[in-house]
């Protein structure tokens, strides 16, 4: 039985019906990881206690207390704290950090009886778009192992795509769920800012970060989103929200979809453009109304995002001093010398670049020109979204300007990678929900993703639209899933 191709709903039925046990499902995935992960390297840590969790889940099932995710095998991005399970952020700085508490999302999932099969690779401190800045090495794309899986949640997307977990959690600060989901041919949701608690997520840019699900389908993402959503006293930016899984299957006829012209201009790969345009036609055939709209400030979104994100990162990462946790250098004759040596040794180059940029944007003499201006642009971009949403229910765009690229084909100039975030960062800047789902394949067989952006807390509506499209989409499985 190809359990790795089954949806959460199908597995729920098999588990509740006694056709399989949680232990059997867990062993199935442990075997797949042992056999296939050496070629993908999605996992940094495989959970040695997964089978103990499976036993508890099976007991819940047998006692008739199963929740939607009881016994379901999940992978967790390695910047989400899991009690007793190493959480490295893919950094030398946290190489041996074992949290003594659960993040709120991990606590919720553990209470529901979900099984954490392991911790997934990522760009160091979630800073990157290719999972090549990880201290633990690269993750490969299951559709072509010579290609990157995207990032920063590259391990989370690759593990789902290769059938190495049922679904996974990622985090998205500027596209880090949606871009790897697009590169690996799976579905990934960046929820509305505030829908999911950030407590226990290792902070990168606190006003932009959000934890979200990656799954084989929008329906799987909806189930996982419901399990992790909710107001949390540990995160003052969290808000209550309505469940979304029950919205799946609602009619989409009459939905007004805005298509911003700026997202289809220079720099967009022709195959991706054609695939997204075909998807637009598909929605039109379903009875949706397509409307051209405009977002003039898109061209400034990348600098605004990198200035805000890096400024927050430089502040958030100031806590890594080697004292309470994390790497501690053996060099240095004074406290300050050892602190600097600790940070020099613990952080990789991309993290250091972002810290320097953030320090620059916040420093005396440059604050108004960069950080303040970036925040004014943030207001303008939000306003442009509000204008579009006066006449549209949602917005459809490509997720990325190009499909997954081969390792080593980007230049050494870091801005080349930054510019590839162009279609995803505005959503984080505005705090909106967006889902990426596959809408085609290149002639080389690499997946193409499109994004549906919704109004704040309309996560259910955009997942339902993605679900409607997925029902008509012809998926191509990669070799690891066949």
């Amino acid at each position, binding site marked *: 039985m190809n359990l790795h191709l089954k949806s959460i709903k199908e597995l729920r039925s098999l588990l509740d019906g006694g056709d399989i046990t949680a232990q059997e499902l867990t062993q199935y995935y442990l075997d797949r990881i042992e056999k296939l992960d050496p070629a993908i390297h999605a996992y940094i840590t495989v959970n040695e206690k997964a089978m103990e969790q499976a036993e508890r889940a099976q007991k819940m099932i047998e006692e008739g207390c199963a929740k939607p995710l009881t016994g379901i095998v999940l992978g967790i991005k390695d910047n989400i704290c899991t009690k007793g399970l190493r959480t490295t952020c893919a950094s030398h700085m946290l190489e041996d950090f074992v949290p003594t508490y659960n993040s709120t999302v991990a606590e919720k999932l553990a209470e529901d009886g979900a099984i954490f099969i392991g911790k997934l690779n990522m760009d160091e401190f979630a800073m990157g778009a290719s999972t090549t800045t990880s201290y633990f090495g690269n993750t490969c794309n299951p559709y072509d192992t010579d290609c990157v899986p995207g990032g920063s949640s590259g391990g989370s997307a690759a593990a789902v795509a290769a059938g190495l977990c049922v679904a996974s959690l990622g985090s998205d600060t500027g596209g880090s769920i949606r871009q790897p989901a697009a590169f690996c041919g799976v579905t990934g949701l960046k929820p509305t800012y505030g829908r999911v608690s950030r407590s226990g997520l290792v902070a990168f840019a606190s006003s932009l970060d959000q934890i979200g699900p990656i799954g084989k389908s929008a329906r799987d993402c909806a189930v996982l989103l419901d399990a992790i959503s909710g107001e949390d006293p540990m995160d003052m930016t969290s808000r209550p929200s309505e469940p979304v899984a029950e919205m799946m299957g609602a009619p989409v006829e009459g939905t007004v979809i805005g298509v911003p012209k700026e997202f289809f201009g220079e720099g967009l790969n022709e195959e991706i453009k054609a695939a997204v345009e075909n998807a637009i036609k598909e929605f039109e055939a379903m009875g949706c109304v397509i409307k051209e709209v405009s977002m003039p400030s898109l061209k400034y979104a990348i600098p605004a995002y990198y200035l805000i994100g890096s400024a927050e990162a430089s502040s958030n990462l100031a806590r890594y001093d080697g004292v309470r946790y994390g790497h501690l250098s053996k060099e240095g004759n004074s406290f300050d010398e050892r602190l600097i040596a600790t940070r020099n040794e613990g952080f990789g180059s991309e993290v250091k670049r972002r810290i320097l940029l953030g320090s620059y944007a916040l420093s005396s003499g440059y604050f108004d020109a960069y950080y303040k201006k970036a925040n004014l642009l943030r207001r303008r971009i939000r306003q442009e979204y509000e204008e579009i949403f006066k006449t549209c229910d949602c917005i459809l765009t490509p997720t990325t300007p190009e499909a997954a690229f081969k390792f080593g084909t980007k230049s050494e100039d870091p*801005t080349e990678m930054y510019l590839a975030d162009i279609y995803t960062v505005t959503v984080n800047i505005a705090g909106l929900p967006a889902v990426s789902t596959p809408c085609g394949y290149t002639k080389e067989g690499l997946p193409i993703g499109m994004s549906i952006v919704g109004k704040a807390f309309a996560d259910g509506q955009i997942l339902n639209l993605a679900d409607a499209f997925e029902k008509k989409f012809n998926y191509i499985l990669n070799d690891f899933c066949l």
Partner: protein
Amino acid sequence: MKDLALIDHLASLSRLSFEGEEKERMAKDMESIMKLMDTITEVDISEEDYPLTAEGGMELLREDEVQPSMPVEDALANAKGKLYHFIAVQKLMD
């Protein structure tokens, strides 16, 4: 032109340090990054158009009540230097 003095200044603010080739490379990278960031300086936008007032949220602060705190052994679990129930660090002054 690469600004090595700027790298030293930013490194000092960031509790980092760069020497030799790494400093040269970082200066080159930062030059390229700042060229990209400089594009926002051309935008005509002011606080009058978009006032940077605090957004809602203060009412969401939780009650200031004593809550259970992390046990000392948990707080010390990941510290490299420990002495009794304290974290030990290098001495800060002679």
